[in-house]
């Protein structure tokens, strides 16, 4: 801190800073240098559960699982599937059976060697209705899982499915051991680069280096301390004062501010996390396609993106993000057509001044801004939107999909199929929860896309899908958010992934 201020021009502020630092007695010198290889990361929310299969919300949960556990496969920052516990895999020709070959010599943190039965146990657990894992629907095509030999497992599917290796990279698919499952919520045992040390809810979660990690030379850090700091004002201040070394998932308003900092930096990547507005096609007034079209026309995606995210997001057509190869760059994402919307509304006999309640899960300022901005647009079209901010958990449990009109958002998924199929296919899980969209044409396209292994064919099909949804969308996916993290300048090599992840395994600190 002092070096930094010496290097910069001595302004009044920095002079004051130095003076006060000098004046402060050593006793209450606040910022004690942490041991060199302890990384302290601030997260805004605490992990909900330590049980990987039961995780529902992202954020800190995913990061903890990622660093503490391993999965069969993993995805690199370019969303390409890479080996993790499985070193290789292959499918049968019809894509209905997948075989994974496990890495030999992998040990759990308690020393127990990993074998194929752990994989089978984990996936059976995922498929167990009583466990209630959100991943179950992603693997609904799995008929059975066989242990071929201690280092080989085979998944037998009911339908052809090309993206199984990518699906297996999901965080909830982290491999657990049956023998340690009873303590999984208190003292989880995984195979990841870091071992669990302790978790004090509301305070911090401590991980330490796993010396037996299967990849050589990693991790470099001795310890990772995940601190829970709900206010970003506070966590950014802590980052600047050196009380933490990194801040996870900065909101847009903090990104620009932190970019000015001399002691910390921002690493920002485009990510697949999207936010938008959902309307329930089974409920009035959205059972009328004209109303849906009218609402689509009200939305000025670039403008809302700017208001909600201050430029730290990209307007998009569907959950397929603009940086994805399949994204239809040729379709313009334009402004609103209020007159057109009004005309459609008139046709649908929606009176001027029609009042609609819009439910918004709270604790997410961008989403609130999105809703507020949309409200403004709707007002111009003669629709009176009343916002109802609800506690997020309450929203997800009781309102999502049960109210006609809401603002919502989802984390990015690994493959185009996982990104759209659950939302837009008439049998899709999220579709049936959220908005009940039924379009046989779309179904046909999505089914075709998921069963082909030909990339060009897929690109064409998903391109068509994006076009089909332009008008008739059961909601509006407005933008995909950037993922930005703040780092102290002494932190190096933390991999920031568009999947909202900080990979600490290669990270290091300079003194």
């Amino acid at each position, binding site marked *: 801190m002092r070096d930094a201020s010496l290097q910069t021009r001595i302004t009044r502020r920095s002079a004051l800073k130095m003076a006060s630092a000098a004046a402060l007695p050593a006793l209450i010198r*606040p910022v004690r240098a942490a041991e060199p290889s302890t990384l302290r990361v601030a997260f805004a929310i605490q992990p909900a559960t330590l049980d990987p299969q039961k995780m529902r919300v992202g954020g800190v949960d995913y990061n903890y699982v990622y660093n503490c556990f391993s999965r069969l496969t993993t995805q690199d920052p370019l969303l390409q599937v890479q080996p993790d516990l499985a070193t290789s895999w292959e499918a049968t020709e019809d894509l209905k059976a997948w075989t994974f070959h496990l890495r030999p010599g992998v040990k759990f943190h308690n020393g127990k060697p990993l074998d194929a039965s752990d994989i089978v146990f984990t996936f059976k657990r995922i498929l167990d209705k009583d466990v*209630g894992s959100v991943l179950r629907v992603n693997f609904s095509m799995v008929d059975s899982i066989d242990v071929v030999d201690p280092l080989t497992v085979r998944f037998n599917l009911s339908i052809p499915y090309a993206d199984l290796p990518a699906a297996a990279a999901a965080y909830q698919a982290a491999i657990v051991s049956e023998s340690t499952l009873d303590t999984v919520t208190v003292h989880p045992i995984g195979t990841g680069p870091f071992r669990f040390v302790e978790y*004090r809810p*509301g*305070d911090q979660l401590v991980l330490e280096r796993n010396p037996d990690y299967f990849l050589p030379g990693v991790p470099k850090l001795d310890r990772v301390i995940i601190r829970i700091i709900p206010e970003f004002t506070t966590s950014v201040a*802590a980052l600047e*004062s050196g009380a933490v070394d990194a801040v996870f998932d900065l909101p847009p308003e903090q990104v620009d501010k932190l970019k000015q900092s001399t002691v910390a930096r921002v690493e920002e990547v485009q990510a697949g996390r999207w936010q938008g507005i959902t309307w329930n096609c089974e409920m009035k007034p959205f059972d009328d396609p004209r109303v849906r079209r009218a609402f689509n026309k009200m939305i000025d995606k670039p403008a809302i993106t700017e208001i909600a995210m201050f430029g730290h997001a990209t307007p998009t057509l569907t959950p397929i993000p603009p940086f994805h190869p399949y994204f239809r760059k040729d379709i313009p994402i334009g402004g609103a057509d209020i007159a057109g919307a009004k005309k459609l509304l008139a046709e649908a006999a929606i009176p001027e001044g029609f009042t609609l309640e819009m439910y918004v899960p709270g604790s997410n300022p961008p989403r609130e801004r999105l809703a507020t901005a949309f409200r403004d647009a709707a007002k111009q079209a003669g629709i009176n939107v009343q916002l109802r901010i609800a*506690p997020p958990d309450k929203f997800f449990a009781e309102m999502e999909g049960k109210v006609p009109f809401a603002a919502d958002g989802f984390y990015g998924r690994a493959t185009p199929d996982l990104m759209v199929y659950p939302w837009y296919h008439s049998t899709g899980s999220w579709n049936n929860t959220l908005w009940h969209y039924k379009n046989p044409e779309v179904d046909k396209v999505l089914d075709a896309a998921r069963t082909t292994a030909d990339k060009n064919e897929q690109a064409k099909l998903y391109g068509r899908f994006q076009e089909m949804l332009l008008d008739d969308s059961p909601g509006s996916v407005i933008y995909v958010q950037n993922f930005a993290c703040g780092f102290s300048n002494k932190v190096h090599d933390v991999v920031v992934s568009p999947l909202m992840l900080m990979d600490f395994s290669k990270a290091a600190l300079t003194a």
Partner: protein
Amino acid sequence: MAAYVVQRLGAAMVIMVAMSVLVFLATHALPSNAAALILGQYSTPETQAALEHRLGFDLPLPVQYWRWASHMLQGDMGQSFEMERPVAPILWDALGRSAILAVCSMIVVSTAGLALGVVAAVWRGRWPDHAASIFTYFGVSLPEFYWGLVLILIFGSTLHLLPSSGYANLAEGLGPFIAHLVLPVSTLTLTLLAHVTRLTRSSMMEALDSVYVKVARARGLPERLVILRHALRNALIPSITVLAQDFGFLIGGIVAVETVFAYPGLGRMLVGSLARQDLPMMQAAILVLTGVYCVANLTADLLYGVVNPRIRYGGSIG
């Protein structure tokens, strides 16, 4: 005095029981479907029913209350729905940290408040009085979280003088331990000071205007003794009750302050569990907080008895 103690203890027990019933009923009046909350979006009515049965939600309310209350009494606060960990250790941890914050704040508030109040009363109508009242007006005019933000901005972000978040174990050294407490304690103090100061001022003024102070002066005691021995001793008695009352506000303030300063205490835990509708956590947190408040009031009552000779020494001696 013994009768007084027994009476206060009895009253506190009755209130705790009433409170536990209230907490139980209020949380069970939650319109949310707890099982759906626990199981998430993909739960089916059957799995929900099974869980409800396992949790005993299908039993009559009095039975549920009895089970809950008797478990509580044994220190078993159940499992957090969300974290699936026992609530008790988490709660006691958080309570311990909140208690540190609360006790430090109470100490600062009571000493500073009493001192300011005495100064204001002794120099009533003159500048120390006005200064004290402006200061306290100012402090109480904004909610805790705002002062918290302002203090973070000044001492954390701008001056980098003090850590603006979290908390340090005593094991990490006395310095960091204290440093982490300075800002939250200051914030709480700022908002609570007014109440104590004003009450001390008015009870001190009443004492200074009393006949016994006049008599003490007529005995030729120096003013210092008159103020400290005669006036303050009596002015302290009502202050005890006020401090206990402020403890209630402190608990409220702690909820906001802990959020602002990322202080891992019970208040934040409560707000979190409310937002997530984590029933066992919520019940336990509310019950413990009210219990703490009850104990604070009880302590004040008992202290009141000790300080007030009318209660300590009952009968007349003719």
